[in-house]
């Protein structure tokens, strides 16, 4: 017997199939792998672009100004107070054992090996990774990236490589300044709070440092710079969903780059300690 019109209509308007848990998990895994693949491809391209032209030197200088000079105030301010608070925290413990003069040693090592690179990396990631993501994301949703491609320009050369290169150059410099200002902060705090002679503090802080300590800190800043710039660019160039998507990408850029910096710091520290033990 033929269906009534109402029955036929209800069959046509059948509800879409609900995917199984397995299918959802498979889709999630595929999406994640695709994201990692695309991120790796963009990161690799940002470096290989340097081998061939065109090179955008003016854009790189502009980005160095934005990332390097623009981040200087927050790096100086936070560096000074981190050095000071380190002295206050460790100095009181050393005083209990009558070893307050060791404060300079420990603060110097902590700043050069660990706190300088990681805190500067996190601060610059918070400021610049989000800025890069929002700038590139806005360009993407207003079709400026497509316009660039339509005019024969490769966006990875024009937008990504200058930002990555600028970060790679400026973050080690910012970290160096941060560590130096941190030691000054520590010195001021130790003089005022622990009554340690400024010269003694400074002498101990410098003497304790070895080449491996400086290399450990320096190598970390290079990796952190690469992470914050590439994550910002990747999030910006993969915005979905208009201005709301730009906001999401900006948040994601800060979260992902910060987490990656902290996670990679652990592995880099382990690697650096192993290499220092083997070769220095």
């Amino acid at each position, binding site marked *: 017997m033929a269906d009534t019109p109402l029955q036929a209509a209800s069959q046509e308007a059948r509800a879409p199939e609900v995917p199984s848990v397995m299918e959802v998990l498979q889709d999630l895994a595929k999406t994640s792998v695709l994201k990692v693949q695309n991120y790796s491809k963009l990161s690799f391209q940002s470096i290989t672009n340097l081998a061939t032209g*065109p090179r955008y030197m003016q854009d790189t200088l502009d980005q160095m100004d934005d990332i390097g000079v623009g981040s200087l105030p927050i790096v100086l301010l936070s560096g000074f107070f981190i050095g000071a608070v380190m002295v206050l925290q460790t100095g009181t413990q050393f005083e209990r054992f009558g070893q307050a003069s060791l404060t300079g040693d420990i603060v110097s090592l902590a700043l050069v090996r660990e706190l300088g690179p990681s805190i500067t990396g996190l601060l610059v990631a918070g400021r610049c990774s989000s800025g890069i993501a929002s700038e590139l994301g806005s360009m993407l949703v*207003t*079709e*400026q990236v*497509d316009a660039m491609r*339509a*005019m*024969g320009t490769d966006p990875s050369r024009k937008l990504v490589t200058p930002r990555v290169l600028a970060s790679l150059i400026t973050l080690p410099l910012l970290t160096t300044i941060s560590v130096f200002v941190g030691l000054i902060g520590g010195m001021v705090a130790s003089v005022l709070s622990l009554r340690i002679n400024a010269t003694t503090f400074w002498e101990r802080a410098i003497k304790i440092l070895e080449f491996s300590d400086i290399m450990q800190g320096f190598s970390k800043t290079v990796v952190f710079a690469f992470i914050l710039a590439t994550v910002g660019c990747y999030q910006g160039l993969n915005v979905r969903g208009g201005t709301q998507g730009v906001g999401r990408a900006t948040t994601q850029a800060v979260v992902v780059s910060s987490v990656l910096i902290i996670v990679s710091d652990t592995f880099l520290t382990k690697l650096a300690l192993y290499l220092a033990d083997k070769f220095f």
Partner: protein
Amino acid sequence: MEPYPSGLASTVTDTGQPSVEFNNVRLGFDEGEILRGVTFSAQERETVILLGETGTGKTLLLKLASGLLRPDSGSIQVLGKDISGMTESELLEIRRQIGFVFQEGALFDSLTVGENVAYRLYEDGLGDDEIQPLVKEVLRFVELAHTIDSLPSELSGGMRRRVAIARALIARPPIVLYDSPTAGLDPITSQTIISLILRLRDVYGVTALLATHRLQDGFALANFHFDPQSKKVCRNSPTEHSRVAPTRFLVLRAGKIYFEGSPDELMKSQDPYLQRFLI
């Protein structure tokens, strides 16, 4: 050969082959297939009007023609080269032969109007002394010479579209793609944009693909021409018809070419769907 000839000479030469050719092109996204086997071609100096409702894939066709998107299947020939299998670096070279006017202009908001227009020339490594006269000439063509130092945010929507046309025009491309150039503009500004497209077609002799949902834009391009002598836009007379650049309509529906023909054929069509566009 001089790469950027000054003056209003056409850069197009007749070779007899289509400038743009789509052959059974299909393209889909997560939400389903949007283009389901599109086949058409645009001859040199021809203007093809892509007509259709929102979401029928007009913009996708333009992005495919410029290589900004790749088809899932089928082939696309631009200036005799198959671009569907090209790498991104090969496509960058092809795109230099194509001017693209985006729907909202897509001007670089951190650059001035002059820098936006000159963008491609800077990319090609030309010096300021060569670039500035060309930029001024092109901005004069779109009657916006006074805005050279303004930022795009200081311009109205219609002015931004005109700057976008100037930017597409600066390198004298033989093909220009227009994505809804009059969308969201008032009738007077729309008329100014269409006059500009007419001038561009009749002075430079470019091949054009124009996506729109406004039938009157298509008819204006089909029924009028720019007279270089009087420097006015004039209605085509029956005697002039053969000299005027041909205009053809393509109507898209459900991912396919639903109608392809001349303005007269479209006007005379009794098809109920096409009639909806003519009301």
